[in-house]
C-alpha cells in the first residue's frame, strides 16, 4: 500500500491511499483538480502532469523515453516532471508528494 500526497494548483494538500493501478487513476477517482487523464492512461495527452517533490524523485523514478518526449515541450516542464499515468502505485512510492501542474 502507498500513501500519496497531491498538492493541487490552489495549494490544497490531499493524501490518498492505494494498492494498485496508476497514480493518474487514483487522482481521477478522487477528483484531484488538474489531473484529467483524457487519453485514459496511455501516455498520449499529457493532461496528468505532476512535479515530484525533489527528495521523492528517486523513489518515483525517471520517465521513460516516450514520456520524457511528451513532457519535453510542455510549458511547465521541470527536472522533476512526470506524467502520473505512467507511475504505478506500489509500496516503493509510499509517502511521496506530487504537485499538480495545470496548463
Amino acid at each position: 500500500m502507498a500513501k500519496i500526497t497531491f498538492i493541487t494548483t490552489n495549494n490544497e494538500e490531499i493524501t490518498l491511499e492505494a494498492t494498485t493501478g496508476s497514480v493518474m487513476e487514483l487522482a481521477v477517482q478522487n477528483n484531484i483538480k488538474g489531473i484529467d487523464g483524457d487519453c485514459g492512461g496511455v501516455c498520449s495527452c499529457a493532461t496528468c502532469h505532476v512535479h515530484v517533490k525533489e527528495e521523492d524523485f528517486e523513489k518515483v523514478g525517471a520517465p521513460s523515453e516516450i514520456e520524457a518526449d511528451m513532457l519535453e515541450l510542455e510549458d511547465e516542464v521541470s527536472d522533476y516532471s512526470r506524467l502520473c499515468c505512467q507511475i504505478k502505485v506500489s509500496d516503493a512510492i509510499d509517502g511521496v508528494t506530487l504537485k499538480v501542474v495545470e496548463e
Partner: protein
Amino acid sequence: MKEKICVIIGASHAGVNLAFSLRKEGWEGNIQLFDSDPVLPYHRPPLSKAYLTSDDPIESNALKAIESYKKENIDLHLGIKVTSINRDKKSITLSNDDEFLYDKLVIATGASPIIPPIPGIDTAKNLFALRTAEDVLNIKKAILNTSSKRAVVIGAGYIGLETAASLKKLGASVIILEREERILQRVTSPVMSDFFQDIHAKNDVDIFTSKNVIEIETNDKINTIKCSDGTSYTADLIIVGVGVRVNKQLAESIGIEIKNGITVSETTATNIEDIYAIGDCSFHFNPRYNRFIRLESVQNAVDQAKVCAAAISGKSPIYDSIPWFWSDQYDIKLQMVGLSEGYDDIIVRHEEGEGIKFSVWYFKGNELLAVDAVNNAKAYVIGTKFIKKSTIIDKTKLKDPKEALKPVNLLIK
C-alpha cells in the same frame, strides 16, 4: 431568482467533461446529465485496445468516480433515453415519460456504428460492432465460447485494425476485409496505410482489400461471409467496423440545422437559442481552418466541452483547437496531430538505429499541416508546436536523419 438548469443529453467524453467543466467555470446552476447506457460513463478508446485484452472491470475505465458526480452536484441519470425535445416549452421527455425543463440544453449524443444492410447480417452468429462496454463483454464471451476462434473484421479503419490486433492477442485467428483499395483510406495517407498493412501481416493478420461483402450465410453457428468477387470467408465471430452515423434524430426533430452532423458555430451553439451540440455529433466551425469539420476523437469532445461550458457561463470562447488523435496496435503507438487534408508534399523521416520509429510530415507548400508519429512522441510534440505557431521549417534538414529531431535544428536560419 430561480436556479438555472442545464440538461445534457449523452454522458460520454463530451457530456461528462461538459458537466465538470461547467463547475470549473463556476456555473452554479443545476446539472442534469442523461445517458441510455446503464454503465458508469467510461473511456471508449481502450475498448478496442487494452480493455479488450484485459480482465479489468469496466469501472477501472470510468471517466470519473461516482462520488465525483455527487461532490460536484451533477445529477447523473443512467439507463434512461431522452425521447424528445420540446423547444417551445424548453423541456425534454424521457423513455419513462418523465419531463425535465431546461434553460440550457446540450446535445452530446455522439454517434452509433453503422450496420450495413447486407443480406443475412441480422441473423449472423456472434456479430458485433464495437462502441460500448456491452459490446466488449459480448465479444469476450463469444471468443471464450468458440474453440476455433476464427474472427473476421469487416472494415479496416482504426477501430477495426485495433480490434484485430486485440483479438489476435486473445488467441483468435483474424482476417480483415476492406471494401476500399487500401486500408484507412478515409483517414490517412497511402504511406501510413502501407505501414499498417505490413504490421498486421507481420503479426499474422491477413488483410484483404477491395472486398465488398454482399452476403452472410449462417449455418450451425458458423458464418460464411461472401464477397462480390466470389471469395468467401468463414467466421465464428464477426466485428463490423465500417464507420459511424451521427445520432442526430433529436436535433433534427426540432429543426436544428443538420449537415454532416449537427451544425454548430465556433462557440458550439446551434441555430436555436440556448441549444448547443458537442463531440462526435457536432459539425463544427473551426476558424483556424475556416471551415466546418466533423471529428471523432476524445480531443474534440473534451475541448468542445470546455468551450461550451465557457459559453454557457456567459463568456465568449472560441473552438479553434488543432486536432490530435492516437492509435495503439501491437507494439505500435501512432500519434497524430493536425489535419493532413489538402497536402501536396510529404516527408517521411526514419530515426536512425532504432526499431520502428518514424514520422510522416504533411505540407501544403511550406505550411506544415499535420504529423503522424509512429513510436515517436518527440516528432509528435515538435509537430504540435510547429503547427500551433505556424512555424516554417527547413524541409531539407527534416529529411536528414543526421539532424537530431529538435526544434532548433529544423528552423530556417
